[in-house]
């Protein structure tokens, strides 16, 4: 591990976010390293979801949203990039699994095909793309015989992994997970976590979670947010074994939050 050189993928510089006059995030500085799983923990209202949604500019749809500071993706300022282009490089998975109202197959080819992200227009190429995405999301074995049935008929955990596959099909560099397991049972959660650990080799992952245990299971590094401030960020083992800040310790030992 130590020999592998650490590459930084994303720089967050002095980022502050506001909804109306309310400051939800204040002067956050952190880096996201390539091929890591950065887990973000913190009680509700700590600004962790707002932070995540800023990274691919999903907050831009809210007319009350404003921010100062910058986020760089491979040295390019994301706020100067084309928004749609950014989102194909930084994909996002939401808390509720929301398959689009079409078949499993269509859900996956939707983005690559419609957005002309792929030159692969031929049916056989698209088939391969679907198979690869579903395999990477560890869903292939469960759905390979019914790719043309409606995605709405899948179970919650399967739907969430379908959403992962859908993102993988556009081949992003970073995937943002916004509490992806909050609506799932423990077995589905375990499967999603397994999937994340596999994906780490190819992608950079940022995971926001309310589940402290989950952060300790999958995180390479963990950041603790509280009331809009980044309190502490370090290797996951360090955060969970010997946190520097008292607040972090209180939170992970369950004294509040």
């Amino acid at each position, binding site marked *: 591990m130590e020999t592998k050189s650490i590459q930084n993928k994303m720089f967050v510089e002095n980022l502050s976010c506001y909804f109306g006059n309310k400051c939800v995030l204040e002067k956050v500085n952190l880096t996201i390293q390539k091929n890591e799983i950065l887990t973000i923990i913190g009680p509700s209202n700590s600004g962790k979801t707002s932070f995540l949604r800023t990274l691919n500019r*999903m907050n831009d749809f809210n007319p009350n949203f404003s921010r100062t500071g910058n986020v760089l993706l491979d040295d390019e300022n994301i706020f100067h990039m084309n928004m749609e282009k950014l*989102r194909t490089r930084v994909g996002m998975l939401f808390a509720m699994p*929301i398959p*689009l109202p079409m078949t499993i197959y269509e859900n996956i080819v939707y983005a690559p095909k419609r957005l002309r992200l792929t030159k692969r227009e031929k049916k056989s190429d698209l088939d391969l793309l679907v198979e690869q995405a579903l395999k990477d999301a560890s869903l292939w074995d469960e759905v390979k015989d019914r790719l043309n049935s409606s995605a709405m008929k899948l179970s919650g955990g399967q739907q969430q992994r379908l959403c992962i596959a859908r993102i993988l099909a556009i081949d992003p560099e970073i995937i943002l997970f916004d509490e992806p397991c909050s609506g799932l049972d423990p077995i589905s959660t375990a499967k999603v976590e397994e999937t994340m650990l596999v994906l780490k080799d190819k992608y950079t992952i940022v995971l926001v979670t309310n589940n402290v245990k989950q952060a300790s299971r999958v995180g390479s590094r963990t950041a603790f947010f509280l009331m809009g401030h980044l309190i502490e960020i370090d290797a996951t083992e360090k955060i969970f074994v010997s946190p520097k800040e008292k607040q972090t310790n209180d939170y992970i030992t369950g004294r509040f939050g």
Partner: protein
Amino acid sequence: MQKHQAKREKNMSKIKDDIIEKIIFLCGILSIVFVTLIFAFLLKEGISFFRESSFINFILGKFWYPSSTPPEFGILSLIVGSFIVTVGACAIAVPIGIMSAVYISEFAPKSIRDILKSLVELMAAVPSVVIGFVGMVTVAPLVRSLLDIPTGLTAFTGSLMLAFMAMPTIVTISEDAIRSVPWEYKEGALALGATKWQTIRRIVLKAAMPGIIGAIMLGIGRVIGETMAVMMITGNAAHIPSSIFEPVRTMTATIAAEMGETVKGGLHYRALFAIALVLFSITFLVNFIADMFLGKSKNK
């Protein structure tokens, strides 16, 4: 003693409950009874017409000469008239209606949305005779001079004005359907890098489609059944037109215009009921289809 009284009070409230329940039941059943009665009446008068004249001749006959001797009752030209006006109105109202629904629900800022919504609802409240009147005195002369045709009272003018009447229905119901598409669908597509327009076209409109089709059907239902405005602005010539810029006569206008001149129980009178029967079947079918689509969108 007290126990006794409590029991009596309980009985009283139970009786009151029962009475109210019966009244509500009666009100509910009444509307069904009325519709059935109307249909039965139509059927009785209409069917008796077909005893003296064949159904095929009635539907496919080209000539509507109710007062010549012998009279001819062929309603093909009337059906064609209704059809042309309806199709024309839809061709105008559907695209504009859906686009304004998309604009109101997806693009308009809140202040504009509120104004637009109430204006559209106000549009639905304009009485059809007013629309007919406006069409007759302003739109028809305009159509005549612009297109240089002998009269401005044409199927096209009728379609134009009826489109105005169908639009509020289409806009309001489509808008509801579009807005009930969960925000998460849009977010999901946007997070994949889709633009706003791609999201609307591929996701929002697709998910809202059953509701939108229902809205269109209800709009069509309104147009087919419309009488006063079409009578005033379509020219009322009972012949099969060769283009939409010729006068036509619809089924509804025929009934409204001629019912007053007929002998009650006479052949002409019953022929008008037969037209009403045909019209009723068409609107029933359209509403039935609309219900099917609207029901489907709710169950999902």
